[in-house]
């Protein structure tokens, strides 16, 4: 029995220590193929993944562009991003309104292991069960920063999918809403502490979705996040990016197609080159 108990104790210890070593080595390797010299990093959800043409932006600002944007990216992904991005980096952050109201379990939250990020979630009303469900898929090392994305093809018309989903999201303020906003603010503070040069980007919604949003009690609260972000900085501006409306720029209610993405990336790039202060760019 003694031998069994000893082995039962040493076996997981051996597993944890050897796996930790392996994990951090491979994670460091997977996420070390970039430099922050003459580079810009992007974080966001599918709006940013589909809505920014990395090549166009890179040519306009004459810098390398890396992205951690992902479909369904959530609070945990954001915290891990703020941890992984090197100090003194230039960063574009896009916290969409939908990620603030989206149910916790629908967040992607797969950016690798970060004890710090898990602790932050725990301190912001995430239950142990929710944390374990986030922890499990993150035990695998992964590369989070990419050099390319895929854009949606151009079409004259838009796909209107799941309008009822949006309506249900916007019906009432979800219980986790303020905790999520708080976590995003924590992440931004982390970027400030790392002396990063931050820009914020808000993607446009299609008129149908704007209608739903305008009727919702949540709109005021999601807009409020912008002001809370502003309070974190000494000098802060809000600027608008007007997209060319000659042709359809939307793929669906909340995502740009390649035409919209290219237009936005070019105009954003031009503004980034000349900007002086921390700015929120609101695309319209």
């Amino acid at each position, binding site marked *: *029995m003694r*031998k*069994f108990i000893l*082995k039962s104790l040493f*076996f997981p210890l*051996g*597993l944890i220590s*050897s*796996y930790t070593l392996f994990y951090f080595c491979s994670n460091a390797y997977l996420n070390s193929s970039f430099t922050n010299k003459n580079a810009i990093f992007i974080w966001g959800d599918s709006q940013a993944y589909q809505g920014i043409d990395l090549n166009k932006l890179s040519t306009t600002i004459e810098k390398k562009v890396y992205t951690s944007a992902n479909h369904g990216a959530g609070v945990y992904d954001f915290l891990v991003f703020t941890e992984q991005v090197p100090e003194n980096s230039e960063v574009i952050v896009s916290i969409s309104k939908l990620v603030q109201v989206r149910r916790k379990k629908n967040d992607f939250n797969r950016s690798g292991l970060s004890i710090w990020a898990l602790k932050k979630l725990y301190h912001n009303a995430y239950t142990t069960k929710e944390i*374990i469900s986030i922890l*499990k898929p993150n*035990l*695998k090392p992964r590369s989070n920063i990419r050099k390319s994305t895929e854009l949606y093809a151009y079409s004259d018309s838009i796909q209107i999918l799941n309008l009822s989903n949006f309506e249900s999201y916007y019906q009432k303020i979800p219980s986790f809403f303020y905790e999520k906003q708080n976590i995003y603010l924590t992440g931004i503070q982390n970027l400030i502490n790392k002396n990063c040069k931050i820009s914020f980007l808000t993607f446009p919604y299609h008129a149908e979705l704007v209608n739903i949003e305008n009727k919702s009690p949540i709109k005021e609260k999601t807009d409020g996040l912008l002001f809370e972000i502003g309070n974190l900085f000494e000098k802060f501006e809000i600027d608008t990016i007007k997209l060319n409306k000659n042709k359809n720029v939307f793929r669906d209610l909340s995502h740009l197609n390649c035409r919209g993405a290219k237009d936005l990336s070019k105009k954003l790039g031009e503004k980034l080159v000349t900007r002086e202060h921390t700015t929120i760019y609101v695309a319209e």
Partner: protein
Amino acid sequence: MLFNSIDFAIFLPIVFILYWFVTNKNLKLQNLLVVIASYVFYGWWDWRFLTLIFFSTLVDYSVGMKLKTEASQKKRKVLLWISILVNLGFLSFFKYYNFFLDNFISAFSFFGQEIQANSLDIILPVGISFYTFQTLSYTIDVYKRKLEPSNDFIAFSAFVSFFPQLVAGPIERAKHLLPQFYKKRTFDYSKAIDGMRQILWGLFKKIVIADNCAEFANQIFNNSADMNGSTLALGALFFTFQIYGDFSGYSDIAIGTSRLFGFNLMQNFNFPYFSRDISEFWRRWHISLSTWFRDYLYIPLGGSRVGTWMKIRNTFIIFIVSGFWHGANWTFIIWGALNAIYFLPLLLTNNNRNNLEIVARGKLFPTLKELSCILLTFGLTAFAWIFFRAENIGHALSYISGVFSATLFEIPKFSGIRSALTTTILTGTFVLIEWFGREQQFAIQNLGLKWSLPLRYAMYYMIIVAIFWFGGKEQQFIYFQF
């Protein structure tokens, strides 16, 4: 409580410590701990149904005690029928009430008579089919005087509710498991280590193989109308591995867990997909249920020592009842009948006991003939699983007609092809490991035993890492619904 949950990972060490360190000096106390732990394990899902288990235990224990003293054969028979009616009564009500009611209404409306009857919103108690059959085996054996009735209520309760095999088997015979509760258990290091290895392999089967295959099997079966033939064929294959990984994985965890507590449970799966014919498959698949039906239904009906027509009747009865045991749906009945049709030619030509030994014993590879037989049997089994998995007969038939259409030779199309490829590679590796370990009780029983400690640990670590890295989305154990 699920074996692949955090709850169980906490529950198991607590019970283990209490079992071996606190209650180990008193057998009664140790058995009482097993009962309490088993009730907690079951009550974690829904505590209300504990009353069912307790009532079943009470009835069968009392019937057993009465049978011990009762000399009159007539009264003994009445006692046996009380136990059968109570146990099967619960089972019929919870599992089959709505099925019979719906079919009754359909039959009447077929003849132009409309009847109004409301089906009940009944929750199926987890594992009811398993523990019902286990307790029935006790009463029948006591009635037939093949087993001494238990006069230790706690040991008997522990036998009925033993948590590792309570909800999904193996369905233990009273003759095999009950006496183990009477004897003092001593901790056996090699048995416990063997148990841990079996638990590890069971978790791999469930989390890596079954849960990953389930993702694609569900997607394809749920959208079968929009899929081409090759995708549907692939869906059937995914389900074939899902059900094996799921159920045999559960059995492995159950057997391994029991070994940690000093118990031996019967082997429930013996590499069934390497069978060379259907009769061999049924000797290797869900062995505890097949042998239960053989001993308590097939043999009492006359078995195969009767005329040809009776043999055919008995075969159909046993397979159809076995199908119906799985669920209250015509799909299970057709699945059972289809297996009877597969089995009958072998029985009638006296070829049903040709392949008693594991294939290619002592050899690395099978012969070409053996390989073709294995593939044919596997194909027939996978085909039959379509009925098992389908929502209803119409769904199964449209699925099958979809498979055997011109689109069978098109490239499969479904979402997540890349992860399906990973799942295929994992399943292929799994089949290879199972093949090389097919002469053991479970595939990795002897794997690496002669290796140095670091190498052996590296193998265990790799399996654990694979479970975390490649584990599919958590799915309920399929056999819980039975």
